[in-house]
């Protein structure tokens, strides 16, 4: 026979095995009356009664007030503090969520990539631009003396030629001094 271990309530101690036995009988007796109970109800009933008795005893023993206190008139000011905070302009916190953080990073990458692409292709292709700017550029060329333009073109041609000559000399040197096998092994 198991009894609850409460000394002050020794006279009213509960025989758990008797209670379980009783609950089994109850389950059988209700089956013929049309009444039903939730499935497994009697399995946990003794535990639940046991728990409630312990709780009731605890409430008798220890005052229900938990012993915590608050500063004077705290709850009078709490409502005002909350409403004041709510009425303040909300602060937008950037990157509050992880998703937003990664989305922002992705946007930066896309913008940077688009920028690089734009400028790299921009050097090769003339992008239809502002007609006023084209007219202004033409006006500048028109104002420059013809001889100055010719000298500039000739100077650039010479520089290109020099570069081409230097390249050809280097090519000839490599072909004369290295065999095809040597070049293949180096490459």
């Amino acid at each position: 026979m198991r009894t609850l271990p409460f000394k002050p309530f020794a006279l009213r101690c509960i025989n758990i095995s008797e209670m379980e036995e009783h609950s089994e009988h109850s389950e059988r007796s209700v089956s013929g009356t049309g009444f039903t109970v939730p499935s497994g109800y009697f399995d946990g009933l003794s535990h639940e009664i046991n728990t409630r008795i312990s709780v009731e005893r605890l409430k008798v023993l220890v005052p229900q007030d938990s012993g915590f206190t608050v500063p004077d008139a705290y709850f009078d000011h709490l409502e005002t503090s909350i409403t004041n905070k709510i009425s303040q302009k909300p602060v937008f916190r950037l990157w509050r969520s992880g998703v937003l953080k990664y989305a922002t990073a992705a946007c930066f990458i896309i913008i940077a990539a688009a920028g690089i692409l734009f400028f790299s292709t921009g050097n090769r292709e003339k992008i239809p631009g502002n007609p006023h700017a084209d007219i202004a550029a033409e006006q500048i060329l028109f104002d420059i003396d013809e001889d100055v333009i010719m000298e500039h073109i000739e100077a650039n041609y010479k520089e290109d030629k020099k570069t081409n000559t230097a390249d050809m000399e280097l090519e000839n040197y490599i072909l004369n001094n290295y065999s095809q096998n040597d070049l293949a092994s180096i490459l």
Partner: protein
Amino acid sequence: MKQVEDADILEKFSDSKTRNEAFNLLLKKYQQKIYWHIRRLVIDHDDADDLVQETFIKVWNNLEKFRSDSQLYTWIYRIATNESITFLNKQKQRNNTPLDEVSGELEQSLVASSYFNGDKLQLKLQKAILSLPEKQRLIFNMKYFDDLKYEEIAEITGTSVGALKASFHIAVKKIETFMLNEDITF
């Protein structure tokens, strides 16, 4: 004084002209309950003060989206519980505290607190509660102090009623043992 019904609060809140009035009614109705719920979890008054304010600011920001498929007060309790648990987890991470030493820190905070004037038995009960794992402590507090129904606690914690009953039973037995093993006769 008759307490205002949740349905009335929600109806007033849905109208922009009476929104502030509705929120003040909600604050009057729930601020103390929510404060004590948080306080029992985080122990320190200043922490509880911050968290109760955060909770109601979240309530204000999200009340418009609140669907009446759950009860208003269980919804507010859920927000308060999540805020408190997040706070405790951050505290654990910040102090790099192992899980079994968290109760020790909270106990120190309880003893050192100038806002605890409980007698020997109340202190012992709080120590017993702090010795429980976080979830059991949460369930015990809501059942023992707030007298919530299992169905309501299930809505707040997202745990089944069966599991809650088992947890509460275990928590009560642990507290009983704690009280019995100490020098105070239970």
